[in-house]
């Protein structure tokens, strides 16, 4: 059971290591999907939103981390 627990926890952490990052990526995908499926804009606009959104999520997530760690240290 311990091995199964470890396997499930590893699979979970593969995709959801950081809840905010996961949420931001999923939100970007949903926005792109809505633009593609519910508007009359060309599909490529939704694709561009997906690409730029994911790059922005990555960039902001990296930039935010030092400040987050610093505030955790000061609270601890």
């Amino acid at each position, binding site marked *: 059971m311990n*091995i199964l627990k*470890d*396997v499930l926890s*590893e*699979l979970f952490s*593969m*995709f*959801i*290591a*950081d809840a905010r*990052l*996961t949420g931001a*990526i*999923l939100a970007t*995908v949903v926005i*792109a*999907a809505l633009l*593609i*499926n519910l508007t009359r804009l060309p*599909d*490529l606009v*939704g*694709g561009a939103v*997906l*690409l730029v959104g*994911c*790059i922005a*999520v*990555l*960039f902001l*997530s*990296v*930039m935010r*981390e*030092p400040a987050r*760690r610093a505030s955790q240290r000061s609270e601890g």
Partner: protein
Amino acid sequence: MLEWSTAGPAVGAAFLASIVEVVEAFTIVLVVATLRGWKPAVLGTGAALFVLAAVVVILGPLLDQVPLHLLQLVIGVLLLLFGIGWLRKAALRAGGVIPLHDEDAIFAKESAGLSAEVERQKTSQDWIAGIAAFKAVLLEGLEVIFIVIAVGAGRGLLWQASLGALAACALVLVIGAIAHRPLARVPENTLKFGVGVMLSAFGVFWTGEGLGVDWPGHDLALFVFAVLFLVAGLMAARMVRQPLKEAMQ
């Protein structure tokens, strides 16, 4: 005939990502072999490879039943979560925000942990060591399987991606057998950075295709996405490094 622009990124991503995972599994297997001998290490590894083969045999035919667009969308989203997570961590390591992965340190830590576990449970010491090797190979192997499926399934490149992963296993095993120590000199963060870039690029590509986007340039768009993710990752790593240096001064 298969084009290089189609197969190259899939095989390359599977090869590089598998090197990272196999190096991590090899470190644990080496701990087991060093402390308890090669028998439990080989038995644990063999049992894990058997389970992984069973997973592939069961999952393989199921993939053919899933509609292509749905498969691309699901795999694309999972690749985005996995790839951007890797790229973020690699950028933070490159920027000095989190420490680099050190195989020598992991070897020492796992050795101490396994010794303590064996000491605590005096009976069946080889069994405990074999389980440690089994878990390491199974967990890292599952990541390799996911990556192979993720980069290969959307274009019918499962065999080519599998060969990339197998080549990585063979390379690590040959170098490991010669060196007989943890492969600490593998530039793991550089590899993770590169793999994170490729997986993120594949993630955007498959997710877009799954949603119905017809990317201009088709497969060549992957290279453009990869360059954009690479530039963003490098810029972010550089920018988080600056404040750290200023703080040190």
